[in-house]
Structures are given as C-alpha cells and as structure tokens.
C-alpha cells in the first residue's frame, strides 16, 4: 500500500481526532481524503510535525496523533529522545515509513536500507514502539488510541504518491479552526 491508501483506510479512525500532519503530499492527501477542523496541516517546516504534536499533547488532555514521515523524522532525529523522555499518554506518533522522500519524488531515505526507526525510537527511550505493515495500520492505530500509553507507531509501506491538489487554505485559518477544535 502507498500512503494515500493507508490514509483512506484509517480515515474513519482519524475522524474528530486532533491530527498534526507532515508537510507536502501527506497533508495534501489527508486534506483531500478527509478535511476537518481538527487537522493541522503543515505547509512548510519539514521535520517538526512530531515536535508540534508533542507540544500539543503536553499542553492539553485530548489525544494527539502526529502523522509523520521517515524523511522528516530523520531530519529532526532529536525529536525521539525528547518524546522518549517526556511522552505523555495522550500522544501517538505515527510514522509512515515509505523509505523515501515522497513529496520530492520518492528519492530513497536510509530507512529503505539499513536504518531502523523503531529501533532508534526504542533506543531513544520511547517505551511503546510498535512496527506494523501497511495492512495492519488501522488495527494498530486503534489499539494505540485505546491504550492511551504514548505510542510510536512505525508503519512500513510502499513509496508513491496520489495526485492531490495543493492546500490553498490560509495558514492562519488552518491554525484558528484547529485551535477551536482543540478547545471544543
């Protein structure tokens, strides 16, 4: 499965959840598949979805799901120790590990070779790290939501992108409606 197929499959689980979504095509796909006020789309700043989600989870009690990518985790690897040492029970970091920089044309990342993100997350101090194949993503995500124990979920899948329109919503609108959803 490719990322967009996973997102379509887990859309019912993501409904009404607070989601911080990775830059580029991941956000475009999520936006096209299931736009909702509780989606925070990153329009830039590669690498910080996991950090924004962690800050949000630490600041308020609702469950937060960051949908991140392998390339973005690799560019902000310092995030894993910060999550490992501070992870609140309401935080789920879901890394869609397609082994590539999808948005820029699927150039390979090192996770497609020798690098093991789940192992790195464990070594960084993350207590609940689950690695699954794409087809098992929905089940694993639902379990993580139900467990409320602060989970890092690594979802191994194929490279590839769906053709979706660019998000033209103003960033302040994205942020405002997201904050209203957080407060609701």
């Amino acid at each position, binding site marked *: 499965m490719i990322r967009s197929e996973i997102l379509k499959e887990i859309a019912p689980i993501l409904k009404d959840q607070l989601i*911080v979504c990775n830059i580029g095509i991941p956000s475009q796909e999520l936006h096209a598949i299931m736009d909702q006020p509780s989606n*925070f789309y*990153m*329009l*830039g*700043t590669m*690498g*910080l*979805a*996991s*950090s*924004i*989600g*962690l*800050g*949000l*989870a*630490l*600041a*308020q009690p609702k469950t*937060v799901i960051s949908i991140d990518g392998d390339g973005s985790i690799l560019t*902000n690897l*310092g*995030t894993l*120790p*910060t999550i490992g040492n*501070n992870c609140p029970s309401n935080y789920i970091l879901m890394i869609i590990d397609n082994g590539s920089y999808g948005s820029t044309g699927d150039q390979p990342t090192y996770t497609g070779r020798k690098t093991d993100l789940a192992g790195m997350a464990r070594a960084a101090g993350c207590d609940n790290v689950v690695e699954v194949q794409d087809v098992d993503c929905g089940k694993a995500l639902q379990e993580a939501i139900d467990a409320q124990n602060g989970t890092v979920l690594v979802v191994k899948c194929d490279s590839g992108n769906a053709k979706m329109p660019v998000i033209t919503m103003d*960033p*302040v609108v*994205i*942020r405002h409606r*997201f*904050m209203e959803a*957080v*407060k609701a």
Partner: protein
Amino acid sequence: MNIDKKIVDDLVANDVSFVTTVPCKQLAGVIEEVDQRPEIFHIPSNKEDEGMGLCAGAFMGGKRPAIIMQNTAIGVTINTLATLTQFYRMPLPMIISYRGELREPVACQVEMAVHTKALLEQMLIPTYHFHWQKDVEEFDNILKYTFMANKPVAILTDANFWGGYGDQ
C-alpha cells in the same frame, strides 16, 4: 537584583507556562530557575528548531510558550521562524544569550554575533538588546507586547548584562 529570578518571575506573571531550552553558559542560571518553578513546564530540546515546534504545539494547546537559546541558534531556526511561527502567526518570546559581544572570550562566537541583528532585522523580528542590568525592567512589557502581536520577538542578552564571564 537577581536577574535570573526577575526574568522567570516575569514569565510566570505573564502566564508563560511552557518553556523549552538549549543551554548556553550565560543562560545556566535562568534555566535552573525555570526548572525549579512549579508554574512552568520545562522541556529541554535537542535543537532550537525542534524547540520552536514544541512551542507551536503548546501554543495551539492553550499554553503560552517561550524559548531560551543562544544567538547562534538564529542560524538554525530561520526556516522555522518564517514557515511556522510567522506564517501561522504564533507568539514566541525568545530569550537569547548574545554571545560574541563585548567581554566575549571565545573568538568563534563573534562570527555569528556579527550576523545576529542583521538576520533578525531581515526577518522583521522585533528585537530588544539588554546590555545593562536595568534593561531587564522592560522584560515584562516585552512579554505583553509579544502575546499582543502574535509574533516571535527576540530579547538579546549580552555578557555585560549577565555580569561578564567570571573566571572563564
């Protein structure tokens, strides 16, 4: 006056309850003070752009954030300041040690010091420079201004402000 205490008192008085830090020798006292206050959640970050991501999340979760970092981190965070903090219009007080200024013992620090104000100006980031201890009296107003304006704001604090480097 204990400037570490004054800075953290003002943070607390302005309801800043989420602070991330990357250390600088000059900031050791204020970081220790932040760490001791029950009103503040202190989360050290590994890189300053990561810290700004944490602050963006905390802000959207209803908390007032702040970051404490060295001026060299301006070189690390330009993209984040432009595409996250400014693009989404989020407030962020940045308490910055201004290394490489008068009384600096380490030559390499001067290399980023000479770019610091120019970069902040290019980014249109309101910037305040604390050189004398009494300059800290403005801190409370700077915090109010930051959360009024919904912008990142820089407070550069140089070695003279912190009382030099002691025996270093």
